[in-house]
């Protein structure tokens, strides 16, 4: 299996075939993480730069583990350790890194489109680990892998994504990927957090929490970012939890076989009650495990022995 692309900038423009290839590869590589010795030599001699301009714990750890399990060498740079704080531009920093001949740059950046800028100037593999409010394609892929494991398929499903859609790159990547695979995505949240003209991207918008939950095969809850409070996008966390949170009351009205997901980290008691987060429908920890597998698959496909 291989991919005919150098970069992963987003799920926008990626075909169903490519997504399936990545997910199948992830399934194959997954068992490595459960061996007594969790390492294979596939990417020995390859160098991966993890370039995190924005704070991240789980995505970064997940990428680091994925690279290490494939025996790649990794270097990590964060905004505080990079020359960014010294006024260097993104392109300059990247060109300097390039001079040390890495094979792949994994970038997380607060500005939408930063990975695209990098890809325009740097002739090695770029993986988008989340750019602004644009895309988070590896999260989208790991979400799809988790859904496929839970539901056995990715077509004909109804997926509801609830919370801060406007600022969510996860929502965009999930929407694009799931639409490509033939599933229907419905958004719900405070109207201040639903982006304009979102229907044009292929999403439905629910009119109420009941509607969002009722027919869903999958419910993905998004994190409430506390800094949105100062931006006056909703009045209080209390009202948010009451109107837009997923609790036992909502779960009673949901389908019996619904699965509940969350990209983490969870604000327990805000977007999700503890009972829901820990209930039998929750596949949140599967998402985390799948994250490593999907990132291993991408590294393998983009810079591995069979890469284009």
């Amino acid at each position, binding site marked *: 299996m291989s991919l005919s692309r150098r970069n992963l900038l987003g799920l926008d423009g990626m075909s169903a075939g490519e997504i399936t290839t990545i997910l199948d590869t992830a399934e194959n590589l997954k068992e490595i993480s459960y061996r007594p010795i969790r390492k294979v030599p596939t990417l020995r001699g390859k160098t991966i730069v993890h370039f995190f301009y924005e704070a991240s714990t789980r995505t970064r750890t997940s990428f680091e583990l994925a690279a290490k399990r494939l025996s790649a060498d990794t270097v990590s740079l964060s905004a505080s350790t990079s020359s960014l704080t010294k006024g260097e531009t993104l392109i300059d920093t990247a060109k300097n890194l390039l001079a040390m001949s890495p094979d792949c740059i994994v970038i997380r950046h607060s500005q*939408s*489109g930063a990975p695209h800028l990098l890809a325009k100037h740097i002739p090695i593999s770029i993986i988008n680990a989340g750019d*602004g409010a*644009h895309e988070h394609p590896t999260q989208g892929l790991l979400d799809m892998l988790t859904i496929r494991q839970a539901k056995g398929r990715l077509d004909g499903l109804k997926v509801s994504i609830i919370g801060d859609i406007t600022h969510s790159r996860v929502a965009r990547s999930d929407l694009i990927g799931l639409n490509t695979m033939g599933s229907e995505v419905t958004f719900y949240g405070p109207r201040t957090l639903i*982006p304009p*003209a979102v229907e044009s991207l292929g999403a439905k918008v629910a009119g109420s929490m009941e509607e969002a939950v009722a027919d869903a095969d999958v419910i993905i809850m998004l994190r409430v970012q506390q800094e949105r409070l100062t931006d006056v996008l909703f009045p209080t966390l209390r009202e948010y939890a009451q109107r837009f949170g997923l609790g036992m009351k909502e779960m009673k009205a949901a389908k019996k076989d619904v699965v509940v997901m969350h990209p983490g980290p969870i604000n327990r008691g805000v977007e999700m009650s503890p009972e829901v987060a820990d209930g039998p429908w929750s596949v949140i920890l599967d998402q985390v495990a799948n994250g490593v597998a999907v990132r291993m698959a991408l590294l393998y496909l983009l810079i591995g022995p069979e890469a284009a």
Partner: protein
Amino acid sequence: MSAPRPILLRNGRLICPASGLDKKGDLLLAKGRVEAIGGKIAPPNNAKVIDCAGKVVAPGFIDLHVHLREPGQEYKETIATGTASAAAGGFTAVCCMPNTEPVNDSAAVTEQILERAAKDGSARVYPVGAITPGLGGQALTQMAELQQAGCVGVTDDGHPVSDSRLLRRAMEYASGFDLPVVCHSEELALSAGGAMHEGPTSTRLGLPGIPAQAEVIAVERDLALAGLTGARVHICHISCAGSVEALKRAKEAGWAVSGETAPHYLALCDQDVGEYDTHRKMNPPLRSAADREAVRRGLADGVIDAVATDHAPHSVLEKELEFGLAAFGVTGLETALGILLELVDEGLITLPQMIERLTASPARILSLPGGSLAKGGPADVCVFDPAAPWVVEPGKMRSMSKNTPFAGRELPGRAVVTICGGKMTHQAKE
């Protein structure tokens, strides 16, 4: 300095919207003035004769809205390179915005700009002074002195006056000297943090949006204050349908108002931002296709009086960045004519209408000399070929900055000769 030789422009299509002239004939320029117009003119002894068969001979274009960046940001553009760019585009006069360093908020800065323009310029330069010192939005500049020094209007351009009471005072005060107030209309509370037009494309790209209403609300306010004060108010770079409608109503009310748009709002829309193309980032942003259509109609109907480029040169330092961090602004002087000729070819406007929006109309709005081919008037002329296709190559532009939104686009025609004050300021290579 010796007077330039007389120039005889022979056998061109003479179009002067100010007088309604549209006829084949000769044009003689001498001593910096239009000496004779129409029919066959015998060349004086020492005259330079230029064959203009197949070309249009029009008044030199006047751009109401450019940023020449001097003083203060000479790494982006200078008065010399900016006016050379103007000449290459067929412009013989440009009105420069006050957001230089220092801000043009005093007669000293105005005089410095005019001195530099007289020395290095390839076009007439008309400074537009600031409304408030340092564009700070707190007090009024000494507008009468600015006007006396050579300012043709006042504006805070990209830093619009938020305080309606202060803007009212500015309009009232300026109207006492018949000084036009030029408004970049933007409700800053609504546009804050935005990087592009709010709509499907901003949602797709995950970029914070600037709703068209941020412009419309401010246009409505600025026009309402024009009604209140009776001042001459000119609305800059109209980009959306709501602004066109507001301007139409204000004109019907009989207020002394006018408006301009820029070529990029006529030719492009928000989708053209593509994958984070910072050369398509400007303020106001490229709007929806429906807005573009309304702006085109507004231009054709004459609701929008003029086309101005909002020529805003930026270096790669400001443009080769993440989209959200890149500066707003694009160059425009060398592509404006070509973009407008597209509209002529499409049948949206006629050639005389196009020329009127670039000459007589801007001259009237800011009471500038020129804008016509009248006998005795300034010898400011643009000779252009409406059917000489060329491809926009940023590297070949005269502007110091290369941030054109039209790189690679084939335009239908271009200026071949530009004459300012009887002196040749541009001649296209064949």
